[in-house]
């Protein structure tokens, strides 16, 4: 019987990043997956990125993860979103070939040193008191390790529904993992249930695509991974935008009572940001025009995904609804839409390193924590993988703060606050987003990752090179002066830049709204030698300097509270005058700092005042 350092249960996006991170750090890692043919499978929309998510993918990438690289290698379309809102919330989004994505990732997993693969269904974890020592699969095999990471997606007691019909399953055609869920409950974990859904997949040949608005991918050089060079992607495949109409809504309304959440057979709490067609009709009764997208699922398939058309009514009714839409009069559904509900472990039972408070050595990441999205799962998997290894090494945990990364924001959100629906990251979750951009993820995180050996040497060297060039450009900008002579004024005019009346440094120029890195390159060729990402970095920092300074100051204030540590064994019942709810929540979550305590729902400002006073009295660390 072989003993591993780390066992990862589940080969989805969380499991992949967890096991790869752990193996990169040199830990002997076992990845157990229900189906080795569907590693890193995208059972819903085969898309990576989007606002907030892209920042997370870049952060995973900056810490040596695989998601961004795999996306670059398998994408069918790539776009830069939110360009009109400003550089901080700009976000990449890519459609991928869902089979290639999985296959390519499988190859990465198979080629990673220290990473071992097993196919099997984990039925329980093996405990020694309240410490995990291994797992057992349904066929009775036992595997031992010092830490176990659970990344089982929607498989924990997953149940699939199409109207009245329902069956157990982690997704269509795959068995659920019910025993494990039961065991976790028995151990004493508080669990709850969420639902989520997926859309019909329709046959391209049955659709008149000319009736839809064609959306091409971007033609500018782009790439998801910071370690790749941006390039123009040839051979992208388009997606198509369509709209529902009065008839669609009318037909949907007719079948509302066939949806399992209306019938009451299924838990009602799903992601509000992905409402089903039935929910759209119920929530916005006056609207008939709802947008949806038709997107190819890969290069070599006629199956198309219908983003926005989540449904749970019977197959025939799904057809009837879709056929009200011009262009879809003869549509054929290959795979019907369905919903699934599943158990999740209420994530306030985790420490900030993703280890459960209840069972030592047990880590949980991804959908079992009540989140939704491949990107969110990948991020948690990475952090859980890193922290499991650090735990075994006896090192300090790797905790990213809200001011460090979207990853830190997400972790703090799910572990500190109460979840009312599946958690999806967006830019509005992030208070420090002017600093936490997708373009600077490497500058923010790669060194930290290198220090704990989760980032490879060559990436660190590349980071250093980038940092050096940024410094060089900054210095050159300060030194190079633009004098308002005839030649300069002529070129400014030609470049569409407003006039200057006195000599200015290029740094001053770059502060202007109408002067960008493009004009800079044209005006002074020494800057043209630098890669775009270096110039862009400097440009954003220069243009946003005032706001960035404001954000840095608010981070300083934030850190005062974060650094006001509260001991883990602190007993809140001895602090007088705390509100009843506040006391309960504090005792339950055991915040590590006053800052975290402040963010717990149910803890009042007056409770915080009491904690400050009390800690001063007992000589708490400040």
């Amino acid at each position, binding site marked *: 019987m072989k003993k591993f350092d780390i066992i990862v249960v589940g080969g989805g996006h969380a499991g992949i990043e967890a096991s790869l991170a752990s193996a990169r750090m040199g830990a002997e890692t076992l990845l157990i997956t229900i189906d080795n043919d569907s590693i890193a499978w995208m059972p819903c929309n085969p898309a990576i990125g*989007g*606002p*907030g998510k892209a920042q997370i993918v870049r952060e995973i990438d900056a810490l040596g993860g695989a998601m961004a690289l795999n996306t670059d290698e398998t994408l069918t379309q790539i776009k830069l*979103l*939110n360009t*009109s*809102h*400003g*550089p*901080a*919330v700009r976000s990449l989004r890519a459609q991928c070939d869902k089979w290639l994505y999985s296959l390519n990732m499988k190859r990465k997993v198979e080629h990673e040193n220290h990473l071992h693969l097993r196919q099997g269904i984990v039925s329980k974890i093996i405990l020694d008191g309240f410490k995990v020592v291994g797992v057992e699969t349904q066929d009775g095999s036992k595997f031992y390790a010092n830490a176990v990471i659970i990344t089982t997606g929607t498989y924990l007691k997953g149940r699939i529904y199409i109207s009245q019909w329902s069956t157990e399953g982690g997704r269509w055609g795959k068995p659920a993992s019910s025993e494990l869920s039961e065991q976790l409950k028995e151990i004493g974990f508080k669990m709850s249930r969420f639902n989520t859904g997926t859309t019909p997949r329709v046959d391209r040949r049955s659709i008149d695509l000319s009736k839809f608005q064609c959306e091409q991918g971007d033609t500018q050089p782009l790439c998801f991974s910071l370690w790749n060079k941006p390039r123009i992607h040839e051979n992208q495949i388009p997606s198509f935008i369509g709209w529902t109409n009065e008839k669609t809504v009318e037909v949907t309304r007719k079948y509302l009572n066939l949806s399992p959440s209306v019938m009451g057979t299924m838990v009602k709490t799903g992601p509000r*940001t992905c409402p089903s067609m039935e929910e759209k009709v119920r929530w916005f009764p006056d609207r008939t025009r709802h*947008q949806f*997208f038709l997107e190819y699922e890969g290069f070599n398939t006629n199956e198309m995904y219908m*983003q*926005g058309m989540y449904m749970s009514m019977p197959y025939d009714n799904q057809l009837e609804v879709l056929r009200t839409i011009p262009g879809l009069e003869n549509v054929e559904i290959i795979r019907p839409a369905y919903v699934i509900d599943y158990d999740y472990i209420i994530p306030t039972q985790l420490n900030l390193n993703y280890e459960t408070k209840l069972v030592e050595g047990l880590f949980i990441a991804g959908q079992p924590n009540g989140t939704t999205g491949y990107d969110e799962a990948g991020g948690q998997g990475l952090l859980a993988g890193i922290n499991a290894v650090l735990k075994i090494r006896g090192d300090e945990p790797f905790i990213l703060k809200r001011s460090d990364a979207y990853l830190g924001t997400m972790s703090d959100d799910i572990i500190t606050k109460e979840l009312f629906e599946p958690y999806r990251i*967006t*830019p*509005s979750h992030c*208070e420090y*987003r*002017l600093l936490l951009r997708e373009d600077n993820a490497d500058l923010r995180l790669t060194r930290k990752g290198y220090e704990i050996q989760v980032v490879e040497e060559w990436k660190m060297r590349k980071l250093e090179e980038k940092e050096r060039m940024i410094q060089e450009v900054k210095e050159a900008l300060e030194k190079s002066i633009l004098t308002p002579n005839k030649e300069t004024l002529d070129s400014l005019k030609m470049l569409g830049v407003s006039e200057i009346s006195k000599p200015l440094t290029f740094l001053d120029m770059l502060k202007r*709204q109408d002067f960008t890195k493009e004009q800079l390159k044209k005006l002074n060729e020494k800057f043209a030698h630098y890669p775009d990402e270096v110039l862009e970095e400097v440009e954003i920092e220069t243009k*946003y300097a005032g*706001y960035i300074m*404001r*954000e840095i100051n608010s981070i300083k204030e934030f850190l005062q509270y974060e650094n006001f540590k509260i001991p883990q064994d602190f007993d809140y019942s001895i*602090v*007088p*005058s705390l509100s009843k709810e506040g006391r309960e929540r504090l005792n339950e979550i055991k915040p590590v700092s006053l800052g975290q305590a402040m963010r717990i729902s149910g803890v*009042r*400002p*007056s409770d915080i*005042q*009491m904690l400050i*006073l*009390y800690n001063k*009295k007992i000589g708490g660390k400040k």
Partner: protein
Amino acid sequence: MKDTIAAISTPRGFGGIGIIRMSGKEAKVIAEKVFSRNLEEPGRAYAGIVFDPNTREKIDTCVGIYYKAPHSYTGEDVVELQMHGGIKNLEVVLGTLLNLGSRLAERGEFTRRAFLNGKMDLLEASAVIELIEAKTDRALKIASKRLFGEASGKIDSLKEKVLNLLSVIEGSIDFPFDVENVEEEEILKRLEEIREEIQLMLSSYRIVRKIRDGVNVVIAGKPNVGKSTLLNTLLRFERAIVSETPGTTRDTVEEVIDFYGFPVKLIDTAGVRESPDKIEALGMERTLKAIEESDLVLFVFDAAETLSSEDIYLAHLTEGRERIIVLNKMDLPYLVDREELENLFKGEEIIETSALKKQGIEELERMMLEHISPVYIEDGFIADEREKGILTQILGHIEAAISISGKGGDELIAEELKEVISKLGVISGEGATEDILDEIFLRFCIGK
């Protein structure tokens, strides 16, 4: 941790009733040690006796009321002991309570605890002191409205508007596929509406200040133009209210009237003596000072005389200040050179009165009101410098957002709006630090 505090809550002196208030965990236990009855049932008035717990010596009759947390003024357990309104009896009982383990409350500490326990926000808490200090009906009305949350409601509704706009912007950032982009003009329009609302609140602040703190109206002019008559006429029209300065001094007369809800201090600069060519230095200085400190000058001329050099001198002196030109003694033969007068005051309206015959006084009052309160306001949304300061900063953020809008940086507009929201929270006391609270509650007296 939170100790029990006690204080005499009625004014020091002799009166019908005197109340000691106690708040905190131990309030009931301590009270029962000096009071002859058990305060079992919250909210019930128990008639009994207060006594010295050591000697069992009776001190006074007393009505004791126990308010159980959180249903009390402070949100904690509160006991009120109502005795006779003396000085010594209250002091002795208070001393006993302090010996039994309570401590003397600091200024405003009861209200401060009410704030900390969420019984009121900072706007409401500061209304308590305004209510106590209200000098006119209108000042009272404004304080009451604040006390009952109208200002807080206004701040909340402003916050809601900002949040709403922010959520629209954030929505289009978060969900570019599902949420349609907001038009730049729409964002600008809504920002401008918010700006207007804040500007209105800030301008109403000047008026609220006047309602609360009063307005100085100086009646100026050379002797014998009818200033005193005018003062008396204005006094007769209004109910004179408490005047903090003795009515007359040798040189000036000051009276405070309730002028449409504004405590208006009328200052007659009588006694400024002039010689035909030279204005006396001392009188000049006094007049200058009064004018300097005035909110409004009533500049009085004699219609039955030609303009003198003093008139012209005073006219220049008061130029640029809020002033009303009063041409008095219209009942006498008209001698003043109208053209000369109008030249002197280029375009300013001239009110013609006869203070003696009470003619033109209504018109004068209307003008005074217009000067004192250019817009009619009923609500004091903001009432102190702290709130004004924060609101001014908020206005700055909105201005910044307006200047960004249309330049493709929604994310920066969002940053400004987030600042606005957090600062609106500061106004109502979210995250208020000790220092800020100290500053606010030190305006209170002990026992409040």
